[in-house]
């Protein structure tokens, strides 16, 4: 049984179909990338999985259990953590407290949650800024904070929405290393990535291609690289060039 299964999910904003009968699955310890241009439906899919949007059609299952009708906080407690494309730190809380919020699902006391949070903050390289207000962080630091907050949930599945966006090439490499190391820690991931095919090919076990809310292809990096539909709809040029 796959860890996560998305079954025939559709979602529309007014007349715009953001997701059109999308299905996909993620196995334990697997890294699946979702690629597609801006507006392809990646964020909408993440919002559906994390319970912020309720799709009128289709279902999402974790370990075979439906997530339908479950509030976002329950889904988070079941082991799905996420980062946000538009970084949204709790600006007036310290970096540690930003992370401690998620740690509270495993820790009874605030003190315990802060200890756990501090460790994670160190781990993502924000140790020197742990007691700063999160509102003072730079974009790169905020991206790290997003990751740290999600990790505090000890998730089994991490939804990474555009984690590469806004990073410098060397920072992207660091992030790629981080994602590649996730399976060793027992964490599967779905990474939504618009650009940087080089990294997508490197980090993904499988790739799902979205275009205007529809899944147009799915496969290993090698298969996607040579899929004519993908090249036509999205990549637009032979991949050797990119």
């Amino acid at each position: 049984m796959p860890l996560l299964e998305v079954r025939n999910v559709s979602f529309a904003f007014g007349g715009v179909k953001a997701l059109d009968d999308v299905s996909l699955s993620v196995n334990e310890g697997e890294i699946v990338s979702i690629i597609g241009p801006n507006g392809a439906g990646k964020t909408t899919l993440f919002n559906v999985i994390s319970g912020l949007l309720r799709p009128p059609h289709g279902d999402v299952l974790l370990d075979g259990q439906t997530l339908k009708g479950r509030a976002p906080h329950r889904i988070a407690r079941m082991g799905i953590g996420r980062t946000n494309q538009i970084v949204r730190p709790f600006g007036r809380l310290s970096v540690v407290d930003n992370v401690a919020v998620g740690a509270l699902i495993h820790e009874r006391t605030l003190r315990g949650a802060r200890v756990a949070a501090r460790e994670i903050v160190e781990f993502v390289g924000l140790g020197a800024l742990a007691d700063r207000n999160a509102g003072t962080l730079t974009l790169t630091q905020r991206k790290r904070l997003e990751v740290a907050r999600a990790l505090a949930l000890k998730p089994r599945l991490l939804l990474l929405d555009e984690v590469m966006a806004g990073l410098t090439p060397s920072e992207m490499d660091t992030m790629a290393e981080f994602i590649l190391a996730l399976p060793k820690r027992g964490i599967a991931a779905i990474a939504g990535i618009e650009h940087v095919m080089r990294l997508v090919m490197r980090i993904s076990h499988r790739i799902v291609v979205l275009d205007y809310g529809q899944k147009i292809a799915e496969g290993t990096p090698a298969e996607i690289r040579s899929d004519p539909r993908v090249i036509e709809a999205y990549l637009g040029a032979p991949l050797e060039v990119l």
Partner: protein
Amino acid sequence: MKGAGWIVAAIALVALTLLPLHMNGYWLNLLYQTVLFVGLAYGFNIISGYAGYFSFGQIAFFGIGAYTTGALALGTHWDWTICALIGGVLCGVLALPIGAIMLRLRGPFFAIGMLGLAQTARVLASSSSALGGGSGMYLPPGSSLLPVYYWTLVVAGGAFAVTWWIDHSAFGLRLQAIREDEAIAATLGVATTRAKVTAFIISAIIPGLLGGGYAWFLTYIEPSSAFSARVDLQSIVMAILGGIGTLWGPLVGAVLMTQVSEALWANFPQAYLMIFGGLLVVLLIVLPRGIVPAVTARWQKRNTPSAGGGMAMGGVKPEPELP
């Protein structure tokens, strides 16, 4: 520093308990008003300052507390403190369904919704003949203000203690996460509805208990004083002036504002409202987030060793190593 704060608090508490025994009516009255507003400001602070749901309607619970106390006392001849306690509990019970509904509204919609709720409560009170309608209810005149004062002091002290606990607890962190970004808080495992409604209930019980004392203070309850928009607004302004979402803000704001307003009134009886309003405007322009946050920011700045002589350099760059 922290220890010193507690010693000061303990001394203040002893003084607040013993001094009124030797006070004349005027000073005791002023002290009562001060403590009352401290309590009201703390009540507002929990739902609005910590959870971020700005409520213009907490006075509804103040009025419900006052009316419950009055009606019970007249009907049963129980001691008024028991009636006031029941009034407070009733407010907590009512706050559960009201909160569950109203807290679906956000931002200005919640604020306006709560304002409407307070008005509805006032209209209901003035149209109920059992509650005396528009002309209100007379309570047996009390012989001394002291019991009312002590009641209010205990409630305000309790409100402070609860706020201290919130400020140091997991519950408080959850509330602040909701204030900062509710959707994100939910995706981080915070049961947002439960936390919000709990905060709302606490923020309803406090004015509910205070209202019972107020009824006994006035010995006459009528809709526009029990659901007084002026009292509501004053307590809100006090909390904001002191700094909402902080432990000390409501205390600082309420004490400062009641004393300054009294001093101005005594010295400039004609112009006092104008001067007072002007002062408030200036203070809020200079310190938009309130006095306490401004002071703590100052203090922190002075006590953090500034690397290379300043901030505003985008932060200390940490090593870019995600392991």
